[in-house]
């Protein structure tokens, strides 16, 4: 026996002595409810269906509960913006307050209800003791995919929003597993990207094929997450796989107070760092879209702004993929939040969202091929400023978010290029 075995043995002998002297137990008489629950929750055939049902309920809960609050926040800030625009006579200041400040705050705060909803659901899962069971159920599958059981829940949360997904990796004890999960979770297509897919797919593929196109984009995202996890495991985070060792705690009734406290602790971190980052970016984008002031008529003509000039300057980068300068601008705006891409086209084309799809096709901005390539690009390139903020916070560095920014943008160009190239080879326009 080596020294560490002797140490461990004597430590546990001592523990046993103390427990024998102090603890009385009536175990063995009745089955504990943990045993009964696990019999169903970890059942050979029922375990996974029950788990998937819980996931579905969690998303329903998070989004249904938060939806009215998101609408209230959106309307409150557009109302405030409207008031500011009317009451402030100095036009620069009015535009700054209305679009820059209130528009920017609205863009940040509208994310808060679903993010807090997901955090609350996660806290309840964690406090009840089920989160460890989820890792137990999914470990085999996930470790084949270059991840581990603990990464499953964060990845699933990513379908809602990547920010809580990245923050949920805190429950993982192995640093390498955690880093890989953080780096690949942005490939999980969040709910903010869906409006973009719906717009483009509806416009270029028509209702009959739009669903298939959107589904395949989600599938590409999952495939990329798996492939890059395997690649990271072989390159950046080498070494023997970490042990899984995990205690499955007794089930406990989640306590409302502690669940809310956990939610708040996680949510506050998002508000703090990611909030300032998104807000700062929004103000910069506002500045670029309303200046030069005279040429844009105070932000009325985005086509004349610095932002449009930037779009024109970037056009050579995107024109091989069949996109014009407006797409470059939309992608730049998309850095704030992906659904902003839709609104940007609305502003640039001067049409409402209802007729936006038709205009995109009739003006020749997208063909089915370049449209699908665009959907792939939106899937892959950096999800948003908030996600970068969350990565920076969770890795406590600037280098990792910078790495993600470069890696994902390069990959987005590569995949979209591949789609366009392969499509042309097959004779699509």
């Amino acid at each position: 026996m080596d020294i560490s075995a002797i140490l461990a043995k004597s430590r546990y002998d001592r523990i046993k002595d103390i427990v024998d002297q102090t603890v009385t137990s009536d175990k063995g008489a009745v089955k504990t409810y943990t045993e009964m629950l696990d019999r169903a929750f970890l059942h050979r055939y029922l375990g996974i269906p029950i788990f998937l049902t819980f996931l579905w309920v969690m998303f329903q809960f998070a989004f249904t509960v938060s939806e009215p609050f998101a609408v209230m926040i959106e309307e409150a800030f557009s109302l405030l913006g409207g008031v500011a625009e009317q009451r402030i006579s100095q036009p620069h200041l009015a535009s700054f307050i209305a679009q820059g400040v209130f528009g920017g705050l609205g863009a940040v705060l509208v994310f808060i209800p679903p993010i807090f909803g997901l955090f609350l659901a996660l806290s309840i899962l964690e406090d009840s003791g089920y989160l460890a069971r989820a890792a137990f159920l999914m470990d085999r599958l996930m470790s084949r995919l270059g991840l581990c059981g603990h990464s499953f829940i964060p990845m699933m949360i990513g379908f809602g929003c990547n920010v809580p997904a990245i923050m949920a990796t805190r429950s993982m004890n192995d640093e390498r597993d955690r880093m890989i999960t953080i780096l690949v979770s942005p490939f999980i297509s969040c709910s903010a990207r869906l409006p973009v897919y719906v717009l483009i797919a509806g416009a270029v593929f028509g209702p009959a094929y739009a669903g298939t196109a959107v589904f395949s984009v989600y599938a590409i995202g999952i495939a990329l997450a798996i492939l890059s996890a395997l690649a990271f495991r072989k390159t950046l985070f080498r070494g023997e796989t970490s042990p899984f060792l995990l205690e499955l705690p007794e089930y406990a009734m989640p306590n409302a107070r502690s669940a809310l406290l956990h939610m708040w602790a996680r949510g506050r971190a998002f508000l703090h760092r990611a909030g300032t980052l998104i807000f700062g970016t929004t103000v910069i984008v506002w500045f670029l879209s309303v200046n030069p002031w005279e040429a844009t008529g105070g932000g009325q003509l985005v086509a004349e702004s610095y932002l449009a000039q930037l779009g024109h300057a970037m056009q050579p980068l995107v024109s091989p993929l069949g996109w014009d300068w407006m797409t470059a601008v939309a992608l730049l705006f998309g850095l704030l939040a992906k659904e902003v891409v839709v609104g940007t086209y609305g502003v640039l084309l001067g049409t409402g969202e209802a007729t936006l799809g038709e205009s995109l096709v009739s003006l020749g901005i997208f063909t089915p091929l370049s449209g699908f390539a665009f959907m792939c690009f939106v899937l892959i390139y950096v999800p948003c400023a908030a996600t970068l903020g969350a990565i920076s916070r969770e890795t406590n560095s600037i280098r990792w978010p910078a790495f993600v920014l470069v890696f994902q943008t390069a990959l987005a160009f590569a995949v979209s290029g591949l789609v366009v190239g392969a499509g042309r080879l097959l004779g699509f326009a």
Partner: protein
Amino acid sequence: MKEEYNGIMSRSRRLDELRAGQRGRIKSVSPCGSLGQRLMAMGLVEGEELEMIRLAPSGDPIEVLLRGCRLALRRSEARMVNLEAEGE
């Protein structure tokens, strides 16, 4: 795993060879770097009795009961834990 049924009762077994509901007493933990240390730190020490509760739906990891605590570990980790021979 098959040898067990071939009448070799005295052969010592490893934790990953237990079937659900079977019990065993730990003889030793293979000294294997940090993994062995982690296993021992979690209470998998000589003389401790444990019971295999169940396998995950895909057969891995496994759940064992140890001193009233439920512990989940992978088969590859359970292989490090040698059990005393027990006639069934």
